[in-house]
C-alpha cells in the first residue's frame, strides 16, 4: 500500500485506500482489545504485573479507550466510507491518494498520540485525553481530510439522489469536525471550571452521538440491502432517523453531569432529550428489520448479515439503557458504576462493532475480489465476539448494580470491591475471548488477501460458496 503514497492518483487502483484503512482498523482492533483484556486482568488481579509505571492501569486505561475509538471504530468507518460512498454514487472515490495519505497520517498520528498518552501526557479530560496538539492533529490531518474525500465524492456522484447512508457519512464527518473544534476549546483557550467540565462531556457525548452511532447505523443501511438484495424498507423512516439523530442526539450532554452543579433547566432539558434518543433508535431498528423481510434465512446463513442484524438487535437494549439511565431517578442509582462501563461496551463493542465488522468483511472481500478464506474462522470470530461481549456485559451490569446498591445503602466500599471480584474475573475472561477472536480475524483476513478464492467480475462475495 505504501508504494502508492507517492504514485499519481490515476495510477492507484480503485479500492486501495479502503484495503489500507481496513487492515489498519483490524490491527488496531487487535491492539485495542488486547490492551482491554490486559487492563481487565489488572482489575481482577491487582498484582498481575506490578512495579512498572508504564504497565500500570492508570497509564493504560485511556490508551485502550482511544485505540478502540480512534483506531478500530473510526478507521473501520474510514474503510466503509472509502468504498461505500463511491459505490452509492456510481462513481470512483474522489481521491484514492488522499484516502491513502489520510489512512497513513491517521496511523502515524494515532501511534504518536497513544505513545504520549501512555507516557502520561494527559489533558485530564475524559474522552479527550490527548494533549491539545494531538487533538489539533486529529482534527486537521485525520477527520477533515476524511470528510473532504467523502464530501467531494458525493458532490461528484453520478446519481441524482443521495442514498441514506451517504447523508449520514457526509453529516457524520462534518459533525465530528465541529465537535472536535468546540469540544476541545477548553484545551485550546484554557477554559476552566464548570465550563471545562461541561465541554468535556459535551465532547464525549457527541463523539458517541454524532459520529459513532449514526455512522455505524449508516453502514447497516448499506450492508443489509446490498447483501439481501431487498430495497431499504422506507425512505421516510430514513428521514425520521437522520433528523432525529441531528436534533436529539446532539443535545443531552448535560446528562453525564447530573450531580454537578450545572443549571437545573439544562439538566431537565437534557434528560428529556436523552429519552428521545429512542426516536432514532426506533427508526433505525424498524427500518433494518423490515428490510430483512423474506430474507431471514440469511441471518443464519450469511456471516455479514448475521453480524449486522446482531448489532442492530443490540441497539434495542443499548438505547433502552441509554434513554432511561440518564434520568434523575435512575442516574442517582447507577451513575459512576460498572453499569455505565457495561453500557459503554454495549455501544462500542456490541452495537457499533458488530455493524463495522460486517462492513469490513464485506468490503474487504468485494474490493480484493477474494472470497473469505475460512468460514469456520469467521464463525469462530462471530461467536467469540458475541460470547465474550455478553460475558463482559452481563458481569459488568451485575457489578454495577452491586456498586449502586452499595452506594445507596452506604455499604463500606471495600465490601463492594470484594463482592465485585468474581465479576471482574468474568470481565477479564470475556475481554480475552474478544481479543482471541480478533486475532483469528486478522489471520483470516490476511489469508483471504493471499489465498482467498478469486471472485469473478460482476459477482458478489456471498454468491460464491466457501471453500473452507
Amino acid at each position: 500500500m505504501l508504494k502508492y503514497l507517492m504514485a499519481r492518483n490515476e495510477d492507484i487502483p480503485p479500492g486501495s485506500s479502503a484495503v489500507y484503512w481496513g487492515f489498519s482498523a483490524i490491527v488496531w482492533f487487535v491492539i485495542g482489545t488486547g490492551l482491554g483484556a490486559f487492563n481487565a486482568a489488572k482489575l481482577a488481579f491487582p498484582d498481575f504485573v506490578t512495579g512498572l509505571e508504564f504497565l500500570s492501569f492508570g497509564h493504560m486505561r485511556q490508551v485502550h479507550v482511544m485505540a478502540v475509538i480512534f483506531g478500530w471504530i473510526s478507521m473501520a468507518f474510514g474503510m466503509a466510507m472509502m468504498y461505500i460512498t463511491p459505490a452509492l454514487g456510481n462513481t470512483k472515490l474522489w481521491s484514492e491518494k488522499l484516502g491513502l495519505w489520510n489512512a497513513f497520517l491517521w496511523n502515524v498520528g494515532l501511534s504518536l498520540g497513544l505513545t504520549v498518552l501512555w507516557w502520561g501526557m494527559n489533558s485530564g479530560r475524559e474522552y479527550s485525553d490527548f494533549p491539545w496538539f494531538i487533538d489539533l492533529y486529529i482534527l486537521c490531518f485525520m477527520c477533515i481530510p476524511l470528510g473532504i474525500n467523502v464530501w467531494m465524492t458525493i458532490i461528484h456522484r453520478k446519481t441524482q439522489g443521495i442514498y441514506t447512508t451517504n447523508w449520514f457519512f457526509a453529516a457524520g464527518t462534518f459533525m465530528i469536525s465541529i465537535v472536535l473544534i468546540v469540544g476541545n476549546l477548553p484545551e485550546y483557550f484554557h477554559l476552566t471550571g464548570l465550563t471545562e467540565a461541561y465541554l468535556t462531556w459535551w465532547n464525549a457525548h457527541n463523539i458517541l452521538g454524532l459520529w459513532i452511532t449514526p455512522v455505524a447505523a449508516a453502514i447497516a443501511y448499506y450492508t443489509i440491502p446490498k447483501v439481501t438484495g431487498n430495497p431499504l424498507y422506507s425512505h421516510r423512516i430514513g428521514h425520521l432517523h437522520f433528523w432525529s439523530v441531528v436534533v436529539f442526539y446532539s443535545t443531552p450532554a448535560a446528562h453525564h453531569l447530573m450531580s454537578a452543579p450545572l443549571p437545573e433547566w439544562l439538566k431537565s432539558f437534557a434528560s428529556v432529550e436523552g429519552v428521545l434518543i429512542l426516536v432514532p433508535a426506533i427508526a433505525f431498528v424498524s427500518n433494518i428489520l423490515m428490510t430483512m423481510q423474506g430474507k431471514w434465512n440469511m441471518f443464519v446463513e450469511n456471516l455479514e448479515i448475521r453480524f449486522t442484524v446482531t448489532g442492530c438487535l443490540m441497539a434495542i437494549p443499548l438505547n433502552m439503557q441509554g434513554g432511561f439511565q440518564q434520568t434523575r431517578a435512575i442516574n442517582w442509582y447507577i451513575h459512576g458504576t460498572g453499569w455505565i462501563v457495561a453500557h459503554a461496551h454495549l455501544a462500542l463493542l456490541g452495537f457499533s462493532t458488530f455493524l463495522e465488522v460486517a462492513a469490513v468483511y464485506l468490503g474487504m472481500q468485494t474490493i480484493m475480489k477474494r472470497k473469505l478464506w475460512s468460514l469456520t474462522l469467521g464463525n469462530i470470530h462471530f461467536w467469540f465476539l458475541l460470547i465474550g461481549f455478553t460475558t463482559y456485559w452481563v458481569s459488568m451490569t451485575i457489578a454495577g448494580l452491586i456498586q449502586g446498591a452499595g452506594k445507596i445503602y452506604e455499604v463500606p466500599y471495600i465490601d463492594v470491591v470484594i463482592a465485585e471480584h468474581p465479576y471482574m474475573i468474568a470481565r477479564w475472561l470475556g475481554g480475552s475471548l474478544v481479543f482471541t477472536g480478533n486475532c483469528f480475524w486478522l489471520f483470516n483476513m490476511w489469508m483471504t488477501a493471499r489465498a482467498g478464492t478469486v471472485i469473478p467480475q460482476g459477482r458478489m462475495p456471498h454468491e460464491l460458496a466457501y471453500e473452507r
Partner: protein
Amino acid sequence: MSWKMDAPMVTLSDDATTLKNEALWEKEDLGGLTEDNNPIPKPVIWLVVLTVITAFLVTAPLWGQRPTAALYQSYVDSMDKPEVMAAKDDEDAMKMIVAMNKGTSNDALLERHPLTMDDLRMIKDQVKALEAKGVDMKDYTVVGNHVVIANFEGNYRPDGTRIRQQPWWDKGYTIDLFYLSYFFLAVFLIVKRLPPTTWQPRHGHGSH
C-alpha cells in the same frame, strides 16, 4: 412549488412536483441500492409518541434526591415533646418521632431518607436558626450534618432571591416543548413532500 393541501395527510406536493419526484426516483440507481416509498408504519409512530410522553413523565423530578430541611422540620419540633424526652433510649425516641409524624404527604420521602437521633441533634440548631430567619425551608438541603442552601438555580422571587428547589417544571421543559414541536413539524413537512405512498418506484426494472 405550491403545496396541495386538500388531502394533506397523503401529500403536500402538487401534481407537477409529485410527477417530477416520481421521475427522479425511477431514474435513481444509488449504486445498486434502492429505497422503497413505504409509509412510516403506524406502530413506529405510536412508539415515537409513547417515547415523547414517557420522556416528560420519567424525567419530571418526581424523585427529589437530597432531603430538604423542610422534610425534617416536624422531626426537629417533635424532639422537644415531653414523651420523646422521656424515651428510654435514642432508638425508642426516634421510633416515637417517626410515628408522630406519619400521615403527611412527606411519608414516602421520610421513609427514603431515614435519620437517627444523633443526626437530628446535629441539624437541630441549624434548622431552628433557619426557621427563625423565616426562609423557605425547601430551599435548603440536609447534607450530612450540614443544612446548606440547595444546589438548584430556579427563578427569581419578587424579593430578588432565587428559588433553590428542584422544579417540577422549568425553562428546560419549556424549551423541550418548542424544540420537539419544531422537529416534528419539520419531519412532517419533509416526509409529506415525498411522492404519495400509494406509488412505488420500479427499481431498475423500468425503461431507463
